[in-house]
């Protein structure tokens, strides 16, 4: 078997296609690295500026008093740019990069503009990044996901379309099988040969790419990032073997290599280019636009409802604990409801996207895209993780505020109203800080299904190739 593999590799190394492949992959990977080095520092800078500003808000508020912190909350939250952005862009420009902290609503002012009823902050999820005003032509990003998903798969077919049909045309297949080699050994030999010959230029290109990126002083890759890169490389090989298997399958069944290439190319176009977009369009037709009536019903029913509920407490004439408690409950419930409404909308939209992603997952190219996004820490799942992180932090911060207030003996312990809460400034260092983290094991969990599906695709195609080759007449 090793003999066959070796022969295949030697054959390929000397061919025109090997040279062209190397040049092509190198050019793409260098482009990718240069682009990343050009853009990533700016992205990180933008993020850091935003975080600094947001932190200064938090510090100011903490320095002012506990109540100010409870009323205005922390500054906005920003999504940390992934150092592996060059692996997958993940539609990042179309996703929001922040979760916002809404200003406290003012329910009522008097004639002089003094705020009589003033609520507390709540989380809100902005729609999309509105800075995206690109009027340039529509192109795919040259990231790893594109290079592997479109180019490498095409190369895999390019290397395998004549694996059997070419040998049959030359008559060497009969010669080879005249020896006492079982057919499955021939198949595995061919498979490994093709996979290794593609891996050589690909690994070379990846190395050059990573060399460029890791030697630059502006980008720093952690150990975890290297681990993620290793996983992405393994996924790339798995994906390539899928197309190698497909190439072998068709090549074994078809008599002429030209016909084999034609079938393979058209299959490739369907699988990689059209299926993701067509399925996405089909999937989005399951999520219709909001109609006018629906919109009208959703419009602002919260406040009126709450007004009725707390009317009596809020309007009692003297300023006693009962009124304060009513105010506190009113503010808290208003913020909670506002947040719940926002969360529900997010959930609804997320479920639509998840359904669409599940449908497009029939295409291996989309599976690969999702997997690389998942491990590179970009894209939709990452956005959800970020939103979850902010929610967790919000709970933490609110608990912190309640605990600190409890520690102050002068306070009435009625949260969210100025008269009922601690007015002392607190040390900004004691306030918990938001940290946007990525979790590798969590990424594995979300990716497990897709990984399994991709492996299944490979196995099915490989066994298909085996069956086809075993039964074929030479």
């Amino acid at each position, binding site marked *: 078997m090793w003999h066959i593999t070796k022969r295949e590799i030697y054959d390929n190394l000397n061919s025109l296609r090997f040279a062209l492949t190397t040049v092509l992959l190198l050019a793409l990977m260098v482009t990718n690295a240069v682009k990343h080095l050009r853009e990533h520092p700016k992205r990180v800078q933008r993020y850091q500026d935003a975080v600094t500003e947001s932190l200064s808000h938090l510090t100011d508020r903490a320095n002012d008093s506990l109540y100010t912190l409870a009323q205005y909350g922390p500054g906005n939250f920003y999504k940390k740019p992934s150092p592996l952005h060059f692996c997958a862009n993940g539609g990042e420009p179309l996703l929001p990069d922040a979760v916002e902290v809404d200003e406290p609503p003012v329910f009522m002012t008097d004639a002089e503009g003094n705020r009589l009823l003033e609520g507390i902050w709540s989380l809100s999820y902005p729609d999309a990044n509105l800075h995206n005003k690109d009027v340039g032509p*529509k192109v795919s990003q040259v990231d790893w996901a594109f290079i592997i998903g479109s180019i490498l798969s*095409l190369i895999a077919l390019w290397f395998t379309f004549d694996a059997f049909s070419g040998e049959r045309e030359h008559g060497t297949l009969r010669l080879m099988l005249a020896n006492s080699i079982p057919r499955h050994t021939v198949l595995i030999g061919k498979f490994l040969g093709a996979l290794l010959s593609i891996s050589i230029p690909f690994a070379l290109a990846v190395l050059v790419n990573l060399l460029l990126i890791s030697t630059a002083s502006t980008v720093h890759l952690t150990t975890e990032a290297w681990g993620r890169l290793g996983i992405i490389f393994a996924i790339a090989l798995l994906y390539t073997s899928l197309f190698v298997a497909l190439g072998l399958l068709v090549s074994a069944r078809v008599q002429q*290599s030209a016909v084999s290439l034609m079938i393979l190319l*058209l299959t490739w176009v369907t699988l990689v280019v059209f299926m993701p977009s*067509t399925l*996405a369009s089909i999937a989005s037709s399951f999520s219709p*636009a*909001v109609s*006018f009536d629906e*919109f009208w019903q959703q419009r602002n029913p919260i406040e009126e409802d709450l007004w009725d509920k707390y009317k009596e407490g809020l309007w009692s004439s003297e300023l006693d604990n009962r009124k304060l408690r009513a105010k506190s409950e009113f503010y808290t419930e208003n913020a909670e409801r506002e947040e719940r409404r926002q969360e529900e909308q997010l959930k609804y939209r997320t479920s639509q996207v998840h359904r669409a992603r599940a449908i497009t997952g029939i295409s291996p190219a989309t599976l690969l895209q999702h997997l690389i996004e998942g491990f590179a820490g970009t894209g939709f799942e990452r956005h959800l993780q970020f939103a979850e992180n902010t929610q967790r932090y919000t709970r933490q911060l609110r608990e912190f505020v309640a605990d600190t207030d409890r520690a102050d003996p002068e306070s009435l312990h009625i949260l969210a109203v100025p008269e009922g809460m601690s007015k002392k400034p607190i040390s900004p260092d004691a306030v918990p800080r938001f940290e946007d983290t990525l979790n590798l094991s969590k990424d594995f969990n979300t990716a497990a299904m897709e990984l399994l599906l991709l492996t299944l695709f490979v196995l099915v195609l490989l066994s298909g190739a085996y069956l086809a080759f075993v039964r074929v007449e030479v």
Partner: protein
Amino acid sequence: MMLTLIRRELLDNLMTFRFAVAVFIMLLLVVANTAVLIKDYERRLAGHKTEVQKSREYMLEGKTYSVAELNIDRPPNPLSIFNTGLDKRLGNEIWVYYGHVPTLWDAEKHSSQNPFMNILSSIDIVFIFEGVLSLLALIFAYDTLAGEYERGTLRLVLTHSVSRGHILLAKYISAMVCLLVPLLMSLILAMFLLTTSPSFSLSTPDFLRIGGIMVASIAYLSAFYLIGMLISAMTRRTSTALMLSMFVWGFLVLVYPNMIVAVIQPSNPPEERRASVHNHIKQIWEEFERERKHFLATDTHLEGDPYGNMRWRGGYNFEHFQDKASVLQYYYYAGAEIDGFHEEPESEALHVQNYHRFLVPLIIDTAEHTWRVRKPVLEELFILPATVDRSWLRLTPTGIYDIATQALAGTDLNGMQDFFTAVQQHRQSVIDYYYDKNAFASRQWFSSDKEVVDWSALPQFSFQRSDISINVKRALPDLFLLLTINIVLFIGIFLIFVRREV
């Protein structure tokens, strides 16, 4: 002789497996995707209708002129099915305010649809043609000369008294006829689907535009066939020709367009320029603010706050500077809606009316002034890089084809700009209407105590997509370029083939 040659080639091509596959795959992809795209268009149209109704409702809610919410929603272009272009990508909701000249960059996406869905890839018919037509053309072309050479039939043909040019022409014509079958069949089926859908109302110019797209498709197909033929003429073996064809296809269709846009760097960083112009615009508005303050200070009745001396019963007022540095958006926004007053404020009201008679024309003038500053910079910041990208894309037939069909469908940048120019004109007519009604100096500008604004007489917005002749004019340079590529390739093939030893 020519006819015999053509007939032979035709029969050769028609009876092959690849012809059957070509027809099948084209029909499958185009019909399936057209059905999906029609659904998608209907959904976008429904979203547009919701938005129109919503903005009408918002407009009617405003009781005074100064708080008017005049939103305009951009309808989806039915021809975006053929080439989406910028139709889906750019904002479709634009706010018309007398104190700011609306542009494409001020438009937002309306909220009727799930914005997350934008991360999914989208498709259109031209995209299918770009990928599949070129591939089919190369598959038909790679062995047309190399194959005959390999089999030795080329020598046989040339022993007759046929000129080499005739052979080339016959091969070209017959292959094109064969390739046109799947193209035309799929287009006709797509048109059939379009006409059966109730939400599409295509006019005669629209059909002419689709005809233009068809012509562009044929030119594109022919360009790729000629590329394949060139490769076939240069190589001696079909397998080499096939290998090279596929590489060229992958490079031209897949690699080059994506790579070139990533490679070319914007020459000078626009950030500084943006910041300086943003400051300039800010200064213009600060100048305005000084004049406004000055006016308020000189009027003893107003004492710095236009509504300060009036005792309201209810209502609200607001004023602030809207600031979005990324698109150089900066303007003064103020409004008031006062429901009633505690005491009859006749004389006070006259002063406030006087203030607005002075202020609003000043706002409009300042807006015009900033627009003159903003317009060239917006073009430099956003349109110029996009134009550079496009001209680099013109180096491949795929890029030219895409640009030409966008222009024909009206989903290119010019088509989008047409809409925003119409919105700007609409803003002007609203301002003229205000002047006619003397709205700024009226009491309804800020208060609804006496009379609520009657919105029914406000000029209606209407937008007609540009005339077909303009679309064709925009597409013509690229169509011409595509044609030139065809001719150059043909001449190249001829020269190579004539000198070739058989």
